[in-house]
């Protein structure tokens, strides 16, 4: 049973503040992903929770107990490092059993728990090898095994998959998800890869420059991004974002091109407002090659020239020129298109986003 709650958590190095008093409540058995670009403070936050980094202000509670000044060993957590951090002078068995040995567990108990963990992760045949004799994926599994053996209240993962190749990463991602289904501990998972965060987490915390931008389920952060930053960060290919001016029920772009103001924002903006218009690649498609999620009346038709196409087999990414730059669109059931060709595009404005140009906050009420 372990909730984790951060209250006004702050980290300063000298005069430089890295994490600016963040608040976060994590419920028991929840899988939380901290995601953001490098330098956003996500790893520092994780290390503060682990007790590897002192906190400058605020508090951290694990299971209702304030752990601010407790050393890592007294927090009942375990951590999987980006570098795996396996002990190279020990065998896999010794690596897995190390925490139990330090805790002074009985030999039989140790053997049993190591056997359990290695069974879960399929490490049975590797127990007598040393880390140097393992492949990347196997090392990764040992690192997770070492975390499981402790039976911790909270698992901390610090970019555990970033050293693996693309194929293995996808595979290990599934394994982590299965593992969480089996072990049901609270998990805090740091990554810079939004796909990992989306696929794994119950809730995602998007961080930027030491602040939390948004906390929400993968669906919420994807469909209802709270800020322009979140909108651009979550989703692949990223959302098309362009500055525009509101003028009498229309959005006027820098190039003079116009789009109707999406009706869901009509109440929140007035003529003269500077805004950022956002549309996901799924919501702009060559007419007849996409799915509109809203009312047919909200689908705006416009003819645009194609710059480049990227065929992916089941779909094609089509880059069209609008407002002087490329907008990426996703074309389902693709047909061959040529560069320079002008095609009829459908823009599903019911799915559009508007953000205030100055604050970057969503204008959705």
């Amino acid at each position: 049973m372990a909730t984790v709650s951060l209250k006004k958590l702050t980290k300063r190095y000298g005069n430089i503040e890295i994490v600016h008093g963040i608040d976060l409540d994590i419920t028991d058995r929840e899988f939380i992903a901290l995601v953001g670009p490098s330098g956003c403070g996500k790893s520092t936050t994780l290390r503060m929770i682990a007790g590897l980094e002192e906190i400058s202000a605020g508090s951290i509670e694990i299971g209702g107990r304030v752990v601010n000044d407790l050393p890592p060993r007294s927090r009942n957590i375990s951590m999987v490092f980006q570098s795996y951090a396996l002990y190279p002078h020990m065998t896999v068995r010794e690596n897995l059993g190390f925490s139990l040995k330090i805790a002074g567990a009985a030999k039989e108990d140790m053997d049993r728990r190591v056997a359990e963990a290695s069974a879960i992760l399929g490490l049975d045949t590797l127990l007598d090898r040393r880390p140097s004799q393992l492949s990347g994926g196997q090392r990764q599994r040992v690192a997770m095994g070492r975390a499981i053996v402790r039976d911790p209240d909270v698992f901390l993962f610090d970019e555990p998959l970033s050293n693996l190749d693309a194929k293995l990463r996808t595979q290990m991602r599934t394994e982590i998800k299965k593992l969480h289904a089996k072990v049901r501990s609270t998990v805090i998972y740091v990554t810079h890869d939004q796909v990992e965060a989306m696929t794994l987490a119950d809730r995602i915390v998007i961080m930027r420059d030491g602040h939390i931008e948004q906390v929400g389920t993968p669906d919420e952060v994807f469909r209802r991004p709270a800020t322009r930053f979140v909108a651009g960060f979550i989703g692949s290919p990223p959302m098309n974002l362009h500055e525009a001016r509101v003028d009498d029920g229309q959005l006027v772009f820098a190039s003079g091109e116009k789009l109707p103001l999406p009706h869901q924002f009509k109440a929140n903006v007035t003529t003269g407002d500077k805004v950022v218009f956002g549309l996901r690649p799924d919501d702009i498609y060559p007419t007849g090659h996409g799915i509109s999620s809203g009312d047919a009346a909200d689908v705006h038709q416009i003819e645009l020239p194609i710059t480049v196409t990227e065929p992916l087999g089941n779909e094609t990414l089509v880059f069209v020129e609008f407002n002087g730059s490329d907008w990426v669109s996703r074309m389902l059931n693709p047909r061959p298109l040529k560069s320079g060709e002008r095609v009829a595009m459908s823009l599903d404005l019911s799915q559009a986003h508007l953000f205030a140009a100055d604050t970057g906050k969503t204008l959705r009420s």
Partner: protein
Amino acid sequence: MDENSSARLKRRLLGIVYRIGLFLAMLTICLPGLWIVISSLRPTVEIMAKPPVWIPKEISFDAYVAMFSGIGKGGIPVIEYFRNSLIVSVTSTVIAVAIGMAGGYAFARYRFRSKSSVFLGLMLTRTVPGIALSLPLFFLYVRLGIIDTHFGLILAYVALNVPFTIWLIDGFFRQVPKDLAEAAQIDGCTRWQAFWQVEFPLAGPGIASAAIFAFLTCWNEFALASQLTRSVSAKTLPVGLLDYTAEFTIDWRGMCALAVVMIIPALTLTYIVQKHLVGGLTSGAVKG
């Protein structure tokens, strides 16, 4: 002749050239040592002969027998010298390595004020030649009453070795990824346990080589020891070599024999420890 066979021939020729080069290099390195061993086994006439006699005509162990036969029969107190050397070298090595580990670890892991100046200062002490310190040290030791004692020599040797051991051990601790100690702390270790359970074993080979360097420095040191010791109770083996010089003569054979006695323990120790000096022990710890 086709391309392949000429390439093969070229490779073979190059291999032979490499081996000859290697042999010559090794010969240059080993010859003085070899010459000492040979000289300890042949009469003085042969040692001094011009042109040199390359192959000894007769071999005798007289010098070794004489060395141990006691004062008056050409012997010197070799057992005492050996004991002094051992006590001084081992003690100062242990102390220097202990300080070197603490210092090296601090330099490798912690940030503190004027770290680089302190480090530079330590290294600068190495630029002063030991012989330049011998006279000031001599006066200082006389005043303190620690001249001609094991303690005095140990103190000097520790001071001589500490900067070097700190520098070496710092490098070895830097090679141990920081993540490992952190992982150990999360696994339930205190800072202290994490050091002894994880970081120390991994830096072990490096610390062992630092220890060998320190030991050999002490074991072979002559300049300071010749000034700071004078009696049988404190003189070390290198200083003992001087026992073979008289006012008008030098017993080269005896001196070489004592040199061999000095070399053997150092060589044995190096041979034993070098097996443990395998690099790459940390491979597999973190990515790669």
